[in-house]
């Protein structure tokens, strides 16, 4: 037990510069809402934390596992819909909707994972994409999910902790920060766990891993399910924070891609990569998008995204973190 706790909290295998950087990062996030007054800047910060959270989750299967999953949006959607529908239908407090959403995402992923992991590489990526699209089309098609109109969570007259409705965005900031830290600690444990090492062995050489007695399919399936649950957790937060969801908002292909991209840009398979990626892409998206949208110049922000994506793919497959590591090794 003490060993597990130590594994969760300890960063002792990381260099000192990383520890200092991490502490500075935490302090910035903690004081941010007290220093910055602008509501847009606060919204950007919350979105950054949300996507860092998504990225950390996706990094399990996509980074440490090396399996390109282009369907994470379906899990975000499950979480968001579980929260929204349960709050609207039965007035269930937010806190009790978190687990059902995560459980559903896990169960669904478990059901599709075994056939899916018979596939590798491109075939797997396209299969995840197809499954996510099927779910999105079903959520648009069905009436009980609100169809394309989506679900609106009614606003309560007074701020209510049980339903996650607060008068100030500061509370959302600290709540998503808590989820983020929890997930970061989980990742810190995961990368040093048996499962984590098995997964990385599979990524590096599947045949060799199998010959060492690692159950390749089971390891991938378990990771895939954990990733799904983490995505659903972020989805639940999205529903409570934005108060309105529809399939185009919480389940689109673009969301799956953005999640995968934050990880790729930052550095797949590294601890800090997803956070770095989100720190670059989300402010870029929100400020550039808002500025260009005001100028009626649609599409430029995504073209810049696409150029970054192609450049990273061609020149730096390990992302920005890979550049840091190379610089450090050279010194």
């Amino acid at each position, binding site marked *: 037990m003490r060993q597990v706790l130590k594994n969760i909290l300890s960063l002792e295998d990381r260099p000192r510069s990383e520890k200092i950087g991490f502490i500075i990062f935490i302090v910035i996030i903690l004081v941010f809402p007290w220093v910055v007054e602008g509501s847009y800047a606060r919204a950007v910060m919350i979105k950054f934390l949300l996507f860092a959270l998504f990225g950390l989750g996706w990094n399990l299967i*996509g980074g440490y596992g*090396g399996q390109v999953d282009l369907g994470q949006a379906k899990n975000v959607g499950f979480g968001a819909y579980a929260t929204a529908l349960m709050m609207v239908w039965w007035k269930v407090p937010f806190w009790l909707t978190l687990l059902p959403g995560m459980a559903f995402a896990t169960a669904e992923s478990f059901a599709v994972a075994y056939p899916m992991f018979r596939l590798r590489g491109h*075939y797997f990526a396209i299969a995840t994409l197809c*499954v996510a699209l099927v779910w999105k089309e*079903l959520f648009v098609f069905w009436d009980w999910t609100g169809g394309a109109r989506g679900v609106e969570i009614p606003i309560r007259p007074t701020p209510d902790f049980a339903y996650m409705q607060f008068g100030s965005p500061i509370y959302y900031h600290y709540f998503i920060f808590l989820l983020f830290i929890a997930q970061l600690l989980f990742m810190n444990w995961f990368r040093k766990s048996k499962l984590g090492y098995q997964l990385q062995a599979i990524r590096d050489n599947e045949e060799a891993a199998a010959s060492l007695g690692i159950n390749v399919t089971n390891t991938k399936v378990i990771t895939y399910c954990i990733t799904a649950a983490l995505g659903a957790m972020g989805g639940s937060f999205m529903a409570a924070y934005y108060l309105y969801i529809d399939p185009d908002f919480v389940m689109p292909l673009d969301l799956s891609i953005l999640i995968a991209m934050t990880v*790729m840009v930052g550095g*797949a398979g590294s601890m800090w990569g997803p956070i770095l990626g989100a720190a670059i892409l989300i402010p870029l998206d929100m400020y550039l998008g808002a500025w260009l949208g005001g100028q009626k110049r649609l599409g*430029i922000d995504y073209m810049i995204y*696409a150029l970054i994506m192609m450049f990273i793919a061609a020149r730096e497959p390990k992302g920005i973190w890979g550049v840091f590591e190379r610089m450090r090794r050279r010194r």
Partner: protein
Amino acid sequence: MELVTQIVLYGILMGLIFALIALGLSLIFGVMNIVNFAHGEFMMVGMYIAYILSTTLHLDPLIALPIAAAAGYLLGVMSYHLLVHHILRGPMVAQLFGTFGLMLFLRYLAMFIFTPDVRSVGQGILVGKTISLGWLTFDVSKFVAAGLSLLLFALVYLMINRTKLGRALKATSLDAEAAQYMGIDTKKMNALAWGIGGATVGIAGALLAHFYYVTPTVGMLFTLIAFATVALGGFGSIVGAFLAGLIIGLIMVVSGQYVSELKFTFIYIVYFLVVVFRPRGLFGW
């Protein structure tokens, strides 16, 4: 009976068009084992060329066919030299993201130039004309598109199996390293595969624009349909792509007859089932 015949014929016509779209994807995958996510966007370029010719220049959109072919060829070859060549040696993740980035770039370039508005080709010899065969009625444009698809398939098939260039292409797809030892310039072959892939799908786009609306986001759906088609036919198999196109067309039209909102859902499910239970497709090797 009338309805059944109409549906089957319509399915075959659509299927031939899907097959034409899938042809290039299959070729590219066969030669260098890489999936082109931007395939539908190459098609979109062909569609916009037809749109510009018909609306801005008041020419018949049929003239767009050779232009779209040339533009598709150029786009394919350029994509290969500027991007694909550099990501081929990288990990699979990088390959996926490379062509995905290309897809996003083309899509949002179109959005930048043409705005997200839905557009359609308004006039042309074939636009809006129908033909009656007894009690069956069809769009002329779909007939022509299906006919041209047959013709192009025959051309590509002959080119690959009968000409020296085609044999070199086939050799590259079977074993790139061995082909290189035989003195085949495999880099040129790769570029050629991308060129032919872009040209055929560009023509498909120019034809499709005769009866399908154009938006910057039209490509994704057709890319996915092409993936399903190619997976069903067997990645790399040209005959497979042809037959699978027909099957996919029939599935889409028949399911669209009953639940029109979910007609594409069935195609995704077909892809999933095929790759899981028969990964080499119906005719793959």
